[in-house]
Every structure is written in C-alpha cells, then in structure tokens.
C-alpha cells in the first residue's frame, strides 16, 4: 500500500482567508498515494477545513500547487473545479450532510447528477446505489425512506454510499464518526474500509480522534505538514 502514483499532492501551498489576516495555512509538502488510507489528525482551528476546501477546489491556493488525480486544481475555472470535484472526489461530512427531504437513493445519486463520467462508471445508478446501501448495512426499508427519517448512524452510511458511488479516486471524510457512539463508529469504519477497498479509492479522513489510528495505513498530524501563521486560533 502507499506505493502507487500520487492521487493528491500539495506543494508549497499557502492560503489566507480574505479579511482574516490572523490565519494563514502553509503546507510545504503533502502527498497521498493511490489506494492509500490516511488519517489526518488535528485540533479544531488547525486548518483542517481549509485544507479540505483547497483539495475540493471551493477555494484556490494563494501560492503553490494542489494536484488531484494528476490535475492542477488552479488550472481550472470555478465551474470546471465544481465538476472536477463531482467526478473525482467523494465527500463525507460530520453530520447533517444529507438532504433530509429527499429519498435515500436520490441522496446517493446526487453527485452523479453533476458528474457524467462517474455516472457512466456507476453502471445502472439506482441498482448500484441500492447495492452500496445494502453492503453498508442499510436495511431495505431505510433505503426506501426519506433521508431525514433515518438515525444518525444510518445517515452516515447513506453519506458513505454517496461518496463511494461511481468509484471516485479520492474519498474525503471530515470527522464522519464524531456523531457516532464507539460501537457504531467501529462498524461504520469497517464497512467504509471494505467498500473503499472494493472501489480501489484513496481515503483521506480528517479527525481529532487519535483512537481511529489503527484502521489506517498512515497517520499524519496537521502540525507535521503545516506551518501555521502568527496568531492562529
């Protein structure tokens, strides 16, 4: 593991939020190899969210290059970056990350709406989505329900299915287990890892919880890869 070509690489990346001079992110070098699973540990305020926004291309670096799956993020227009994100990155958030009024399958299929290639990879999207949901341990009645009706644990599985569908090369998870209890956490992670392995994707999980470390190929601390500017929170 961790020997393939780089799926994600940040070189000499600097970013400061406009109007917030006190905070600046500075990452000299951070690389993820294909099919690697990495846990990125950091306290809140350490720049995790900013890093994720940079990787996903909702913001662009002031200096340096962010390369995802061989493409320099900065070389694309905002619209292209949005589509690129849809095609190449599966995202799981902490919680509340489903559309509560939409059915589970519509939630899972949502990214495919913006990513035609990923949609093509997904085969018959609805069937693939159902299969993913089942393999992530969602009961059939939950799959048919509105997302808002599910428990938090079930919602996270739906979010995982949504990130995995169409096998994007990079899965980014932002504290996906923090709202789950310990037992559910373990089950969720096991299921997630199994599915990531099946799809052959690379997993980058961001968390403050060091106890998750044993699951991963590699554990990186935010402080190892960043030089944070003066007056950081």
């Amino acid at each position: 593991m961790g020997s393939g070509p780089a799926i994600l690489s940040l070189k000499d990346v600097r970013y400061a939020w406009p109007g917030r001079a006190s905070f600046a992110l500075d990452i000299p070098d951070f690389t993820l190899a294909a099919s690697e699973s990495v846990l990125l540990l950091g306290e809140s305020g350490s720049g995790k969210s900013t890093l994720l926004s940079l990787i996903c291309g909702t913001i662009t670096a002031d200096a340096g290059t962010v390369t995802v799956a061989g493409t320099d993020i900065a070389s694309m227009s905002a619209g292209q970056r949005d589509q690129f994100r849809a095609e190449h990155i599966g995202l799981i958030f902490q919680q509340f990350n489903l559309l509560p009024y939409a059915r589970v399958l519509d939630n899972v299929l949502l990214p495919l709406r913006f990513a035609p290639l990923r949609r093509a990879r997904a085969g018959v999207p609805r069937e693939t989505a159902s299969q993913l949901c089942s393999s992530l341990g969602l009961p059939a009645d939950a799959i048919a329900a509105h997302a808002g009706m599910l428990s938090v644990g079930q919602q996270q599985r739906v979010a995982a299915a949504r990130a995995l569908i169409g096998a994007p090369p990079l899965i980014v998870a932002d504290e996906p287990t923090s709202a789950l209890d310990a037992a559910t956490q373990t089950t969720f992670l096991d299921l997630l890892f199994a599915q990531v392995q099946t799809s052959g994707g690379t997993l980058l999980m961001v968390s403050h919880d060091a106890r998750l470390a044993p699951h991963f190929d590699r554990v990186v601390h935010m402080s190892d890869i960043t030089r944070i500017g003066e007056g950081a929170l």
Partner: protein
Amino acid sequence: MMLRLAFGSLMARALTVGMTILAIALSVALFLGVEKVRTGAKASFADTISGTDLIVGARSGSVQLLLYSVFRIGNATNNVTWDSYQDIASRPEVDWIVPISLGDSHRQFRVMGTTRAFFERYKYRSGQSLAVADGALMDDVFDTVIGADVAATLGYSVGSPIVVAHGLASFVEHDNQPFRVSGILAKTGTPVDRTVIVSLEAIEAIHVDWQSGAAIPGQSTSPDTIRQMKLEPKAVTAALVGVKSRLKVFALQRAINEYPQEPLLAILPGVALQELWQIVGIAETALIAVSGMVVVTALIGMMATIFSSLNERRREMAIFRAMGARPRVVLGLLIVEAAMMAAFGAALGLGVLYIALFVAQPLMDAAFGLWLPIDPPSLRELWVLACVVGAGVIVSIVPALRAYRMSLADGMMVRI
C-alpha cells in the same frame, strides 16, 4: 431529479410554502374574478339591446338617454310630447316605433308603460325576443306583465294584485287603481327582468286624478270609469325606433336631432354604449391596476419567504456544492422552486375562481342581473397565469442571486 428535489424541498416546508401558494392563489383568483366581472358586465350591457336602430328621447346626453331608456338607470330630465312622437312615427324611414313611459315604480322595481309592440320589437342577446313564461300579455288597462326577477322577488304569480307608486322612491301609492299581473316574462338577464310593464294607457290611467305631480284631494275615479275614458298620453319618456333601411339611420338621426318643434335626441345604441365604455374605462383600468397590485404583493410575499428561508437552507446549499453543483445550480434550484410555487398558486387560483364563479353565479344574477358565464379559461386568462409564473420567476431571481453569492462564499463548509 432536480425537479423532484426542488419539489421535495418545497414539501419539507409545506406550511410556509402552502401559505405563500395560498396568497398567490387568492390574488390570482381576485385578478381573474375582476376580469370575469368586467367582461361579464360589458357583455351583459352589450347584450341588453339589439335590433333597435335608434333611441329617441328629450335632448340630454346620449349616455344618459341610453341608461334610463334601456337600463332603467337614472331619470329622464324631460319627456317627448305625444305630438312629436306621432310626427316621428309617421316619417317614411321609420319601420316601427315603440314608446316607453317611465317614472312610476312598484316596490323597488320600475314601472314602464309601453305598447304591445314592445314585446315584438325589443330584442336582446343578438336578436332573442321576450317570451311569456306564464300567463299572457296585457289585455286590459289594469293588466301588467312583470319581469322574472319581479315575480321571483315579490312572490307574484299570474293574477296577483299590484299597486303602483308614483315617482321612484315615493310612498304615495296609486292605491285606488289596482293592477293585476296578467303575465310573467321568462328570464332574460336584462333590466326587463326587473321591470313591471304596463300599457301606455295605464300610465295615463294612474294619473287621471293627479295634477302637477300631486293627487287632487277628494277626487277618485273608479276603474270602470277610467276604462271608458280616452287615455291618450300627452308625452312619453323615450322611443325605440327601427328603420326600414340601415342606410337611412343617420338621415333619420339627423332629422330628429334637428327637429324644430322640440329639442330631441336620437342615439345609436351601439355608439352610446361605446361612449359609456369610455367613461367606465377609467374605473375599469383602476380596478385592474388594483387587482394587479394584489398579485404583485403576493409575489413579493413569496420573495420574502424565499429570502427568510435562505439562512436555514445554507447547509442544504452547501451539500449541493460539495456534491459538485455549481453555484448556478443553487440559483436555478431556487428559481425552479419559485416557479413551482407560482404555478401551483396560479393553478389553485384558477380553481378558486371556478368554485367562486359556481357559487356566485346565481347570487350575482339575482342581485345585479349580471350573468357570469362559466367557460373554460380563455387564451387571455391563460396568458395572465403564464405572466404570474413568469413574474414569480423574475421576483425569485433576487433571493436566488443572494443564495448564489452565499453558496459561492460558503463553498461546502457552513459554520452556523
């Protein structure tokens, strides 16, 4: 799928969305209702008289003459003397002439003296003739034929006695000359429904014991004596005239307008109606403007609801962004939602309109003699509905642009 999501999002906020839709629906129903009443009233007015080439009366305004002679609205300022009437009747251009004598009332209904020719010559709704629903036309001096509304309101049937009051809002009744109902006319939807029709002689008969608008004290002539009298009218209020050839209408009109013995006025009903529309047009425009404003208000209400929902929906928009939706998808989603709300509102408004029409049709007819037809929506109405949806879309662009900027700034990270 995006439509389904937009619909789901609306359903999730069913209460506020429902209220917004209801407001739009009511405003649309009001707007279309005003249109219905307006066009209905216009059609009803235009249908009231047909087949009459000229209306002749004392010189006043053409609209005034039309209103009091045909619609029983307002009063004549003067009469046409019987001599002049006879003179006009004998002109070669005149095919037929029907005198009308107004000025008395029965309860809230006007009494009109005329000849039997009225029942043949008076036409409404593109050439329909009056029909007797019950009984017969008047035979005796004291016979009356009443309109359908008169019979319905006062509960009269053939044979019922009637007492005619002098003047319009007077309590002085001609109670020594009792009339009876000889016939009831079928419903026409015109002012005839609200008229008590008597013979021209009857009008004279009522006033045998009257002089200068007051009863002569102590004098009372019995009905039988009156029947023996020669009851020739001294004057009539107006006359409906038909000409032999349409080409002669203007010549006859000019001749009457320049009648040397008496100041008279002859009008073409259609032309006078046009003048009436011009007068009413301002009020009509105002009415349309007000109901249009109500629609605009409802749409602005929708804009306000969308605005206030934006903050609680930032997370939803962030999810869309995280999944790869461009900010303009968020913009489009909000506009589609607004279009849906406006469309539901417009459709519901149309439904409300038809329910209201169904309920109000008999009431409007009874109260105002206004028959509102229940037709499928006209092209014009469909245009109005389309414009409401279009305006809804335009109005929603403002909050949608705000959402666009918000989602551009938030990206996929929302801190609430």
